[in-house]
């Protein structure tokens, strides 16, 4: 134990040195003013664009978005309560390397370290996640490069947003804002004006992406999470599976997160987008924690295309997100599988929108909400069958589980049908863990805590099985950790 720490300490010092050196050489020109002062106005937007050397169209996009954002007010309809956000207090541009780094894991909140241990996160990964400066050894560059080469051979583009703007401006111009226009909502407009970075994936015609694309290989974009933007385009007949997030709790000093994700699937293309969100939820008294206000939307543009969202949301003080599908192509398919867990004072208002435009489009919604402590969990969803959606089908199932009598579970599905041949079915239920179930497990030697976590996992099974294998295992562990202390 001691030896380990000594080792890692010296290791870190060395790395710090390396990192400093790199910093010295890499950012000579910008050192003094690498982040902008807090506040937002048109000059800030222009400055962000200038520093990122963006082409004219992107600046225009940002400015239009900013002007539109100024006319908007924050949405008041979600079932969440939080103090007023002062948008002039936020720093909208901060270069990734400028992040405050901790010297070693000793400085990390022991509570978080304990969680790492439970999740079985490798040491190097722990450091990266908690913001210890190890970038240089954690050989992300070479790892990243290897995969990039392999993907490059297939014509797959997978890079940070900034890189993609530089290397493939035409693609960005074509697709940016095509699914989530900057006018869409308050946070989408804000994101469009100030987004810092993010990732872009482009899968060419007929290519089945041979590996799961994940943020793991996307170290470059780390620390730019606040106003992230993701764009994934799958051309005709291609397929891709994208993993976002991480099961470990992320250290982050930004309180407001407003990301935008846009997916486009052309004829016969498939996009599978999996998220595990575990941002800091605040402490047991509900102090602190991330506000996660995200706009995620997929466009099934082509015939027989398919977009599948799977999310496991256990973090953030407030979660506000509705990964949605616009089913435009005939016979296209939209799916939404969600587990949202709220404990202590967490609030989640999440769900999906399935917009059926094309004929014989199909959608499935499986939502599992778990409320514990004083957590409030809301499913909000819309299934809309448009006039021409002949033969469209939707099946929705929203189940809630309550652990304790101070929490709340709410279900607000909206169903709008304008086509008689379309068929919509919605089911919802609310339940608790039965004392008889716990006793049965106890009698078989299983502790109450394990029994609860087992039963909750069973409750979420239909969603977990949609996750890629290793993610599913981690998600189960994560849920167990999030459940801690929720049962007396």
């Amino acid at each position, binding site marked *: 134990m001691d030896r380990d720490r000594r080792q890692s300490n010296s290791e870190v010092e060395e790395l710090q040195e390396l990192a400093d050196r790199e910093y010295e050489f890499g950012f000579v020109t910008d050192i003094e003013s690498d982040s902008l002062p807090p506040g937002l106005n048109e000059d800030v937007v222009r400055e962000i664009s200038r520093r990122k050397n963006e082409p004219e169209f992107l600046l225009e996009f940002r400015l239009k978005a900013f002007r539109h954002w100024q006319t908007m007010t924050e949405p008041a309809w979600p079932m969440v309560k939080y103090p007023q956000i002062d948008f002039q207090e936020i720093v909208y541009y901060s270069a990734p390397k400028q992040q405050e780094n901790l010297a070693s894991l000793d400085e990390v909140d022991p509570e978080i370290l304990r969680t790492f241990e439970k999740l079985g996160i490798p040491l190097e990964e722990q450091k990266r996640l908690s913001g210890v400066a190890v970038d240089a050894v954690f050989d992300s560059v070479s790892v990243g490069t290897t995969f990039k080469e392999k993907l490059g051979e297939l014509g797959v583009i997978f890079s940070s947003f900034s890189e993609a703007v530089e290397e493939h401006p035409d693609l960005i111009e074509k697709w940016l804002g095509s699914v989530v226009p900057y006018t869409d909502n308050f946070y989408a407009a804000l994101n469009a004006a100030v987004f810092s970075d993010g990732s872009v994936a482009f899968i060419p015609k007929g290519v089945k992406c041979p590996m799961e694309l994940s943020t793991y290989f996307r170290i470059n974009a780390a620390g730019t999470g606040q106003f992230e933007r993701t764009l994934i385009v799958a051309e005709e007949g291609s397929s891709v599976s994208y993993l976002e997030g991480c099961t470990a709790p992320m250290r982050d000093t930004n309180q407001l997160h407003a990301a935008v994700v846009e997916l486009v699937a052309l004829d016969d293309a498939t996009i599978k987008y999996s998220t595990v969100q575990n941002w800091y939820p605040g402490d047991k008294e509900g102090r602190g924690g991330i506000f996660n206000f995200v706009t995620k939307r997929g466009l099934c543009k082509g015939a027989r295309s398919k977009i599948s969202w799977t999310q496991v949301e256990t973090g953030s003080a407030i979660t506000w997100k509705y990964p949605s599908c616009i089913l435009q192509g005939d016979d296209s398919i939209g799916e939404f599988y969600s587990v949202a867990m709220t404990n202590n004072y967490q609030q989640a208002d999440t769900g999906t929108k399935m917009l059926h435009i094309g004929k014989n489009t199909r959608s499935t919604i499986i939502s599992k909400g778990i409320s514990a402590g004083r957590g409030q969990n809301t499913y909000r969803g819309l299934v809309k069958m448009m006039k021409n959606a002949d033969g469209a089908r939707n099946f929705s199932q929203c189940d809630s589980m309550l652990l304790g009598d101070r929490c709340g579970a709410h279900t607000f599905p909206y169903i709008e049908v304008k086509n008689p041949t379309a068929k919509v079915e919605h089911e919802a239920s609310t339940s608790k863990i*039965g*004392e*008889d*179930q716990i*006793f*049965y*497990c*106890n*009698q*078989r*030697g*299983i*502790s*109450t805590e*394990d029994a609860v976590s*087992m*039963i909750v*996992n*069973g*409750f*979420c*099974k*239909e969603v977990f099985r949609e996750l890629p294998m290793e993610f599913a295992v981690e998600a189960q562990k994560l849920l167990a950790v999030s459940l801690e202390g929720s049962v007396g």
Partner: protein
Amino acid sequence: MLEIKNLRASVEGNEILKGVNLRVREGEVHAIMGPNGSGKSTFANVIAGREEYQVTAGEVRYRDVDLLELSPEERACEGIFLAFQYPVAIPGISNAYFLRSSLNAIRNYRGEDEVDAFDFLKLIREKMKLIGIDEKLLNRSVNVGFSGGEKKRNEILQMAVLDPRLAILDETDSGLDIDALRTVAEGVNQIRSADRAIIVVTHYQRLLDHIIPDFVHVLFDGRIVESGGKELALRLEKEGYGWLEKGEETVSSATSPEEPR
């Protein structure tokens, strides 16, 4: 192994057990019989530690520890197994996963290594074959959509895998056809051994045709009013429980069990 002295227990303020005395030694099979409402299931649940049942007086010693001090899972880990009268359904948890978690919890408690998935599968397949359970049940959620017979067989399977020191079967025969009854009985007979005790709680004698008890006790109105060998069970079969009421009257001048005193 198990020594019960003057055990009294109540549910929501109603006293159900009114002073039970019982001693069970290793290797013995005891049958506890009695009419509906006599307290048989309460007895089984109290031994397993169900919290809705409050023990108001008495003592239960199990292998030299005070059993009443242990939590339900500690009792399970100490080797007490209750085959439930109404096995509980747990959606989403496969039978195999549940049983492996249970087995490993108990092995951990005993300081033994956990069984990996491969060895576990081998073990459970063997036991399933022995008890005559369809392997398909392994991947189904615990007791979800099981028939009455499947549930009871599943309890016997769990018992066979968990290898208890003291097994209590709570009305395991109720609602079973003759084939299932035989399977259950065979399962129990297979685990009969010199270091294991079994308590069979039942309303009817017919299970005791297949599991021959060493001792039979009659529980009536919260007390054991009669103890004897297996011939006692036959007498109950022939004469029903009616004679007990009269007998009771002479012993404790009790009236009908429904009437409060």
